[in-house]
C-alpha cells in the first residue's frame, strides 16, 4: 500500500530494518506511542555560538526517513537521535567539519544534504557553474558578435507582403 518511498531509497543502510517498522510518513507525522521523557526535557539551543553551530550542522544533514528536509526541520525519531548526537558533539567543542565527518563516516556522503565537491560529485557543482560562466560568452559569440545573416530562402517579411497586397487591391479596384 502506501509504503514510503524512502524505504526503497535507503534499503541496505544501517537502519533499514528499523525504518520498516516506522509508519508511512514518520518524518512528518512523528510517531505515536509512549512519550519520550528525555525528548521532552531536551530543548535545542537557539542562541549563542553553540546554538548557531548546532543549527548550521543539523540543517546540513538530511532527515534519513524523509525527503527534502533536514534533521533540524524534522521531528522524526531518527532525526531526533541525530540531533542529540550533534548537540553532544557541539557541546564537546567539536567543529562543524569534525561533526559532519563523523556522520559521513557512519552513513556515507548520503547523509549530507548537498554532495561534497570531491571525486565524481564535483560534477554536480561544475555543471551548473560551467553553464553560468560559459553561457554569456557563448551567446555573445554566436548571436551578437556579428550581424547575423540568415537565409530566409526568398521569403519576404509580412509587412512587405501586405504592401504588395494593398497595391494589387488598388489595381483591382481601379
Amino acid at each position, binding site marked *: 500500500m502506501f509504503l514510503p518511498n524512502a524505504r526503497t531509497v535507503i534499503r541496505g543502510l544501517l537502519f533499514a530494518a528499523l525504518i520498516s517498522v516506522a509508519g508511512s510518513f514518520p518524518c512528518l507525522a512523528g510517531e*505515536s506511542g509512549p512519550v519520550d521523557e528525555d525528548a521532552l526535557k531536551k530543548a535545542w539551543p537557539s542562541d549563542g555560538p553553540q546554538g548557531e553551530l548546532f543549527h548550521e550542522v543539523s540543517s546540513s544533514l538530511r532527515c534519513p526517513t524523509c525527503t527534502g528536509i533536514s534533521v533540524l526541520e*524534522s521531528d522524526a525519531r531518527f532525526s531526533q537521535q541525530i540531533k542529540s548526537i550533534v548537540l553532544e558533539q557541539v557541546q564537546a567543542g567539536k567543529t562543524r567539519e569534525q561533526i559532519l565527518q563523523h556522520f559521513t563516516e557512519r552513513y556515507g*556522503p548520503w547523509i549530507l544534504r548537498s554532495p561534497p565537491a570531491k571525486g565524481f560529485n564535483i560534477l554536480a557543482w561544475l555543471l551548473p557553474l560551467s553553464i553560468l560562466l560559459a553561457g554569456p560568452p557563448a551567446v555573445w559569440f554566436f548571436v551578437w558578435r556579428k550581424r*547575423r545573416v540568415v537565409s530566409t530562402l526568398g521569403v519576404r517579411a509580412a509587412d512587405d507582403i501586405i504592401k504588395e497586397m494593398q497595391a494589387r487591391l488598388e489595381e483591382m479596384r481601379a
Partner: protein
Amino acid sequence: MLADLGFYLLLLCFLSTCYGVLSAVLAAYWRHRRLYRSSRLALTATCVMALSAAGLLWYLFFHRDYSVAYVFKTSSNDLPQIYTLTAFWSSLEGSHFLWTLLLSIYATIALWTYSRDNEHIMPYVSASLQAVLAWMFYLAISHSDPFLRMFPSAADGQGMNTLLQNPYMAIHPPTLFTGYTALAIPAAYSVAALGYGDITEGWLKTTRRWTLFAWCALTAGIILGGHWAYVELGWSGYWAWDPVENSSFIPWIFCTALLHSLVVQDKLGHLKRLSLILAFLAFFFSFFGTFITRSGVISSVHSFAESPIGPNYLAFLASMLLIVAVLYGFRAPSILPPEADKAWGVSKESALVITQFLLLTLAAIVCVGTLYPIISEAITSERTTVQAPYFNAFAPWIGLGLVMAIALGNMMRYQSAKIPHGAKLMTIAAVCAAPIAAVLIIGGDVMLTKKPFNLGAQLVGLCLCAWSACCLTGDLFLRIKDLRYKLGLFFTRNLAYFGGYVAHIGLIIAIAGFLGNYRGMQKVATLNQGESIDFYGYNLKFDEIKIAQKDNATLYQGFINVSRNGLELPPIHPARSKYPTSSNLNHEIALMSTFWHDLYVTLSDFDRDTGKKATFEFHINPTVRFVWIAAFVMVTGGLLAISDRYRGSKSRDAIRATE
C-alpha cells in the same frame, strides 16, 4: 457493476482516441474536411465519456463501494464529504485519471475554439493531442485502472492519506494539472507548425493565449502546493526543492521562457524555432516530472505510490522526444525568420535573450539537481543526496540576474541601443526606491540578521527589488505619457504590456518575500503549565493540552495565550491530530500571521498522562505573506494579458495602419 461500466468507458476512450489520431493524420494528408470533423468528434466523445467515467468514480466514492480497489485504498467510512470528493485524486490511479480527464477537456476546448486562421493546421493539432491522450488511456486501462475490482469487498476502506485531508488538496492538484495539461496545447500547435512546415499568421495568437492560461494555472498551482506544505507538513517552510516541487517548477520555467520568446516573435518575427522548441519542452517536462515522481525513480513526500508504469512512461517519453526531434530535423529549415540579416546588438530583444538564458540555466540547474542522485548512483553506485543547500547555492544568483534583467529589459526598446530617458529614469527610480527599501528593511527587522552574508544578501536584494519595481513603474509612466495620458487608449492598446507589468511586479514581490528566508528564527522550548517564554516580542504562556474532536480527527490541542508588547492577542492552538485510519500523529500548526512575519508554532511532543507539559517549536517566518500576495498579483497580471484582444496578429494591425 458500475465499476465495470467505468472501465468499459475508459476502453472506449482509448479506442476512440486511437481512431482520432488515425483520422486526423489522414485528414492532414488529404485535407479532407469530413474526416477531420470526425476526428474532432472522436475527441469530443472521448471527453464526454471520460467525464462520465469520472462521475461514476465519484459515485462509487460517495456510495463507499469498497469492491473497487481504488476506493478501498483511498477512502473510509469516517471520511468527511469534502475529502470524499478529493479522494478521487489522492493516489496514483486517480491523479493519473484526473490528468487524462483535464487533458481531454482542454484538448476538446482547443479544437472547438480554433481560429479560422489555423484551420489548415488543426488536423495536426488534433492528431498530436489525441496521440498523447491515447497513450494516457492505454496506461489507464493497463497499469493504473481506477476501476479495478477487488474480491472480496471490504466493509471499510483503508482511509485517505491523512496528510491530504486538507482543503488545499481540493484545489491544488486540479489547478496544477490544469497548467500541465494546458501546456499540451502550445506543444500541439508547435508540432502542427512543424508538420505543416511554416508558422502561419494566427498561430501566435492562439499559442500565446494557451501559454498564458497554462502559466497562470501553473503559478497558482505551485503556490497553492507551497501553501499546503506550509500549513500541513509542520516544518515551517513552503518550498523544499523536493523532486515533486522541482518537477512542477521546471515546466513553469519553460512556460515563462516561452512567453518571452513569443513576445519577440510577435514584435519582430524572430526566435520562431526557439518558441517551437520551448513549447514542446514545457509540455515534455511536465510529463517528465510525472514520470520521475510517479514511477518511483525518485522518492519524495508527494510520490504516494510506486507502480509498474515506470518503463511505460520511459518508452513513451523517449518516443515522443524522438518523433518531435525527427520532425524538427526535417521541417525546421522551412521555419524562416522574416528578414535576412538581423543585428541583435544591445536592444530589448537581446535583453529578452539574456532572460531566456537565465531562465533556461535555472531549469538546467534544477533538472541536474533533481536527477543527479540517480545519475550518480548509476555511475558510481554510491548514494548521494541533493537537497535545498545545493539549489540555494545557485538560485539566488539567478534571481539577482532576473531582477536586473527585468528592470533593464523593460526600459529598453526593440532594435534600439538607447534607453529612452535612461539615465534620468534610473536615477529617479533609485531616489524613489530608497524610502521603499528603507521601509522594507526597517519593517522587516532585517538588521537583526546575525550572519554577515545573509544580512548583505538581504540588503542588496531588497534595494534591487525596490529599484527594479520603481524602474518598471517609471517605464509604465513613460508609455502612458507617450499616449498623451489617454488611459482608455492605453488600456485598449497596451493591456498586454500592462499585464506584463503587473506580473513582473508580482515576481519582484515574491523575490522580496523569498529573501525573508535568510532571517528566519526558531526556538524550541518545553513548557510546564503556566510557564511562559519570550520570543521576538511575543510572550507565549502555555496553559494545557486539551482533547477535541474535529470531523474524523481527534485533536490534541495545546492552549497558548499570546501577548505582544503587553497587548493581549487571541490564543493559539498548535495541535497534533490522530485519524482513525492511521497510527500517526499529524501536525496541526498554529499560525499568527501579520504583514511582516508569521508566528508559526508546532506542538512537538506532550505529556500524554497529564497534558500539563509540552514541547513546542516556535518559528518566526518573515515576509511569507509577500509570497501569497505575489502569487495573486502574478496571476492577475497573466489574466490581464490574456484578456488583451489587440495583440497577436501583426498583419491586422498593419492593415489598420495603412487605412
